[in-house]
């Protein structure tokens, strides 16, 4: 399978060039199509422009890094894109690209895919979470000759990507409520993803067979590999995403009156391990905890298998992963051993509460409500915090008070701290010699991770 650049196939438009809608990317980048007249001259200029754009982008990246403004990923991509709007389609030529999207597990799975791809050759990835066009360009720029790339893509941006090129593999992990005031409701995300797949008929799609929203996205695609690892959060899949009919508690073989039904899984994974499409089984013990990561790893293996990379080698690489951009990382803060966990919506909180239920360590819960988190924190009431009754809990973050009120109604005692440092020195935590679990939502986690890296 090769990646074809759709834009270059359209170099002879018959009418006036279509006006493309402005990209909603955070960079505010506008895209345009080169007109037919003077196309050849434009092409030469464009190649020169690509070289200049890459050089300028790299310069911006290293400047940003040396000024300690950050990893430089997004700014480098943004600068390069401003100089050569068509850069992405040029960077993906001759590369086999796996794109990863879904509400939860994108970054971790992208890390796993990038690791697993290394069993087949060099790979690049944007596993830092810079998951829009500028982040993709930055990742691809870093090592233009790598034969493989693993790209994490924001759910609403997959259609933008498949409008520009055909990925080799598309991973569709799951879809549930998240940042409703930014992303909108699930139905619109589902429709956008379905449109994205229609634009990529040549890709191999690896999709979650247990998530009806994902089944609806992928069911009509000609090349789907289905993965089954269970569905913990069911509240966004009680009704058919296509017709609204009640599906109920999902079991092995749900089928809607409209015809949408659970497909047979090609890959299955549970606590015992995984079963591959060829019927072989394998224990799946990973440094990363929980069923959630067994599922992520199975998706990564399904992707690399589609690219003919031997499973054993791919799995060896995945097993080397001990954290994913700080997620699940064990570290030391204020004299405590802490584990950093990311939870940003009801589905991922459910997974993380499952993980911390395996011990009785004290907990620090951190919730912010910036733009990247969503300003609305009503979703805190979708989470069964009642499970934390009897635990030592400290809450902090911009929305510590919302958390405290939620916990009050759940009859979970908690202490409120002004920040994570203070939380680590609080009465609840300070006297304890135990390890501490920190569960933080998106920007809260990002800030913690950035602080960690400065040490």
């Amino acid at each position, binding site marked *: 399978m090769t990646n074809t650049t759709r834009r270059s196939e359209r170099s002879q438009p018959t009418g006036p060039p279509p006006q493309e809608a402005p990209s909603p990317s955070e960079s505010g980048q506008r895209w345009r199509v080169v007109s037919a007249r003077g196309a050849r001259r434009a092409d030469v200029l464009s190649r020169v422009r690509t070289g200049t754009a890459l050089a300028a982008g790299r310069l911006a990246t290293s400047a940003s890094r040396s000024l300690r403004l950050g990893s430089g990923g997004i700014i480098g991509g943004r600068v390069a894109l401003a100089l050569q709007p068509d850069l992405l389609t040029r960077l993906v030529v001759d590369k086999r690209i796996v794109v990863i999207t879904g509400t939860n597990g994108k970054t971790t799975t992208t890390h796993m895919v990038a690791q697993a791809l290394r069993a087949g050759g060099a790979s690049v990835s944007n596993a830092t979470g810079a998951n829009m066009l500028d982040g993709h360009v930055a990742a691809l720029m870093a090592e233009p000759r790598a034969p493989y790339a693993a790209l994490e893509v924001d759910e609403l941006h997959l259609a933008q990507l498949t409008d520009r090129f055909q990925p080799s593999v598309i991973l569709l992990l799951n879809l549930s*409520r998240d940042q*409703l*005031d930014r992303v909108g*409701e*699930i*139905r619109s995300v589902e429709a956008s993803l379905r449109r994205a797949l229609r634009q990529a008929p040549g890709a191999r799609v690896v999709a979650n067979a247990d998530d009806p929203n994902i089944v609806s996205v992928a069911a009509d695609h000609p090349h789907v590999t289905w993965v089954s690892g269970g569905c913990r959060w069911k*509240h966004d899949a*009680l*009704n058919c995403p296509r017709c*609204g009919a*009640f599906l*109920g508690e999902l079991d092995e073989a749900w089928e809607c009156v409209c015809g949408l039904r659970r497909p047979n899984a090609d890959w299955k994974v549970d606590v015992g391990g995984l079963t591959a499409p060829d019927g072989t089984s394998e224990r799946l013990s990973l440094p990363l905890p929980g069923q959630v990561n067994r599922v992520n790893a199975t998706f990564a293996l399904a992707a690399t298998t589609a690219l003919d990379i031997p499973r054993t080698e791919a799995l060896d690489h995945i097993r080397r992963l001990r954290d994913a951009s700080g997620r699940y990382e064990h570290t030391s803060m204020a004299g405590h051993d802490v584990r950093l966990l990311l939870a940003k919506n009801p589905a991922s909180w459910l997974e993380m509460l499952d993980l911390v239920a395996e011990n009785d360590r004290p907990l620090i819960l951190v919730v912010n409500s910036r733009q990247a988190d969503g*300003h*609305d*924190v*009503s*979703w*805190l*009431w*979708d989470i069964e915090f009642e499970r934390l009754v009897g635990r030592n809990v400290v809450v902090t973050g911009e929305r510590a*008070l*919302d958390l*405290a*009120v*939620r916990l*009050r*109604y*759940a*009859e979970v005692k908690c202490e*409120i701290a002004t920040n994570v440092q203070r939380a680590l020195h609080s009465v609840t935590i300070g006297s304890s010699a135990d390890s501490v679990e920190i569960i933080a939502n998106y920007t809260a986690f990002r800030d913690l991770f950035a602080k960690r890296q400065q040490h």
Partner: protein
Amino acid sequence: MIEDSAIRIALVVPDLLGTYGDRGNALVLAQRLRWRGYRAEIVTVLSSAETLPDSCDIYLLGGGEDVAQQAAVNFLARGDALRRAVDAGAVVFGVCGGLQVLGTSFTTGDGATQHGLGLIDISTAPGPNRAIGELSTRSEEDGLGLLTGFENHLGRSTVGPAARPLGRVLHGIGNGSEDTEGAVSGRVVCTYLHGPALARNPALADTMLSWAVGESLPELAPFPELTELRTERARAAG
């Protein structure tokens, strides 16, 4: 005090109307009853149920997407249990999509106008853009005062003569007509405030609870994090 029979709180089709943490309103009501020594039971009625029971004391409807909202109307119109419950004195609280479902009619984003349940005189049509953000209002209803929440809706609603607004908008959009927010008529209350509304506004929760219980309720000791949260959110609304 009714010691032997529990106050029954119906969480109405949360599979269709429950997008914005709406289940929280049921948790708040049940807990505020229990803390006062009442028994409370949350009755979750999914859209797969035969019909809605008409014997509950409080009915809660949350927010949902257009298609889900229409499916909720179809379910609730069947058998007319909610109207019978209202006639018998039940309390009904609708938030966001729930407001539109309880009203007389609503026009969805695709331009189709649907009948609501007509349990309160409010009608809804799409606005020029989605109203998203912190919303604060002042209510003239007994003891309510400042109400805050988060709004996220396209619809703009007009309160008809048979109902009165729940509050006047201090900051945000609300109904989007004449500074009104939500509506009240008898024991039917609806609003665009979520957060959830009853977690953020305990006086509103207690007002509806006293209607359901049929007597005024003893004060609960206020808890400081809630008082602080209300101050913080009123400030955030501007």
